[in-house]
């Protein structure tokens, strides 16, 4: 199946899963109408819950379902869908609150019916989950704590909402509907078991061993891993994996990193990691022989999806070179002779990761490298400042409109380059990027 057909299929599966509860409400024996606004409000509540349920599936990293889109976009969509879901649930509450205040009963949980308090608590928890995700950094919530709290609170909110639905019971009176709703909840519970128990257990049974730790320029460390007692994984250059170091896969202290090595070098996997935060700041202390766990590969960012492209343009900034390096090394190992251009932005010469290897790769590839330095030394003859429209117009080859373009760097760089390339006549479908820093 082609990528587009697969994407349409999975988008259809998603919409079907979200609509299923509403379809169920419409069939079989249903109670008499309670008024248009009343029933509209109830349906909005069910629809919001269906969306929240499928949220668990979106982040379960199901490889087949996420492959046609790229898992970064699935996480982006997870965020959009959460906003739609909470919007519907808030509308459900607001309509009942405004038009049927007597039906909603007292706020005090000591006086209110348990299932009504469960509904209110679910709404509050969903709001906490969303606010703490959208503004995690502003609220100064540590990533590790956020991740655990996100999973726990979202699950708790979902279960409380199910208590509310089954407690109210209007639409779930028929035993088969009751059973279906419980089955629906059970399905998500099983998915959580798969994500939190089955998957980590599989990772535990397929460990990797650190075989080399190589310091690079720009506070970056390359880790080389080899599978320990299993065949390892095959990846496409540009993809990434979640890496666990010095911990069990059950603790979910994993971090996503792009592969930086060649995809044509057997079981050996390399990651080049820049010291930017708490976890990445400790990577240089990793020693040969340590155990690592991987969940991957993921991602659609890569040249292998475009075998017919006449050439490629890469735009990187800082450690954004890692997936590009994987693509360049792989293309070199394959003896690929298509024309390549790399525009590579850094602050100063000392922070240019892989500068020597890029020079040597020029001998093995039809590769042009344009270094752009924000703070160049006095004798620098290359490009200065930041990547902008003027620079792109100057350095892009005449055939750039026919090539596929890959951008990897901070969001600001990615946005500018996407916009300028589009303005210069490159179709949006030819500009590829990976979304990082989602939460």
């Amino acid at each position: 199946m082609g990528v587009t057909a697969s994407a349409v299929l999975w988008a259809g599966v998603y919409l079907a899963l979200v609509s299923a509860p509403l379809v169920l409400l419409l069939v079989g024996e249903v109670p008499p109408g309670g008024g248009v606004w009343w029933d509209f409000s109830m349906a909005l509540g069910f629809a919001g819950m269906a969306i929240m349920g499928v949220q668990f599936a979106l982040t379960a990293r199901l490889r087949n379902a996420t492959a046609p889109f790229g898992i970064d976009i699935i996480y982006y969509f997870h965020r959009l869908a959460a906003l739609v879901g909470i919007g519907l649930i808030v509308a459900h509450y607001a309509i009942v609150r405004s038009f049927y205040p007597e039906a909603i009963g007292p706020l005090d949980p000591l006086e209110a019916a348990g299932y009504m308090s469960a509904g209110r608590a679910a709404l509050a928890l969903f709001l906490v989950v969303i606010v703490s995700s959208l503004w995690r950094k502003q609220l100064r919530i540590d990533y590790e704590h956020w991740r655990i709290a996100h999973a726990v609170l979202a699950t708790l909110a979902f279960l409380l909402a199910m208590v509310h639905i089954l407690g109210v019971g209007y639409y779930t009176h028929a035993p088969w509907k009751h059973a279906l709703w419980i089955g629906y909840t059970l399905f998500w519970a099983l998915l959580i078991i798969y994500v939190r128990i089955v998957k980590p257990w599989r990772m535990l049974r397929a460990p990797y061993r650190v075989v080399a730790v190589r310091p690079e320029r720009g506070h970056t460390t390359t880790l080389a891993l080899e599978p320990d007692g299993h065949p390892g994984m095959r990846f496409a250059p540009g993809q990434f994996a979640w890496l666990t170091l010095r911990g069990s896969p059950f603790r979910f202290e994993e971090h996503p990193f792009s592969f930086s090595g060649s995809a044509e070098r057997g079981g050996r996997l390399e990651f080049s990691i820049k010291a930017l935060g708490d976890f990445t700041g400790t990577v240089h202390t990793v020693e040969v022989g340590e155990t690592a766990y991987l969940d991957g590969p993921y991602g659609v960012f890569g040249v292998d999806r475009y075998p017919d492209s006449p050439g490629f343009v890469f735009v990187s900034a800082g450690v954004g070179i890692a997936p590009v390096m994987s693509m360049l090394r792989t293309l070199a190992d394959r003896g690929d002779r298509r024309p390549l251009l790399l525009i590579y932005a850094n602050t100063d010469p000392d922070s240019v990761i892989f500068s020597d290897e890029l020079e040597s790769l020029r001998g093995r590839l039809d590769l042009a490298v344009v270094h752009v330095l924000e703070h160049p030394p006095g004798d620098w003859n290359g490009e200065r400042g930041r990547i902008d429209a003027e620079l792109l117009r100057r350095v892009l080859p005449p055939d750039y409109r026919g090539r596929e373009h890959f951008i990897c760097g901070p969001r600001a760089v990615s946005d500018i380059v996407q916009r300028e390339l589009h303005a210069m006549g490159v179709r949006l479908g030819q500009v590829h990027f990976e979304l990082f820093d989602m939460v």
Partner: protein
Amino acid sequence: MRERIARWIALLLTFVTVAMSALFAWVHNPQRPADEVPPAREERTASGEHPGRIVYEAQRCAACHSIAGAGSPRYPLDGVGARLDRNELRKWIVGAPELEDALPASVFRRKQQYQDLPESELDALVSWLEGISD
């Protein structure tokens, strides 16, 4: 490009869920005008201070029932005094055994708690409901 597709799917998701919710509301309420909002009538019954009314409020009957649009419209009690006699009203309130098949299981279970109401309160509630005849 992919971000744009994700945004479009989110928009489609909003449209599909709201449209299906509206369809659901419309299918369930064929006789009601689309813009109907229950009237917020101040004077719900003639007997505002009736002791039965006090029991109705204390027991939060409006969580499942409505009178003149106030409360849950799922099980309206308008005209209940004309439909049921005193004895029947009492049976419906406490979920008498013979009503087990007529009520959803969860509702039947919930009604059992009203068997513990003091006789005087139950009497007052029945008397008040008897008076709701239109």
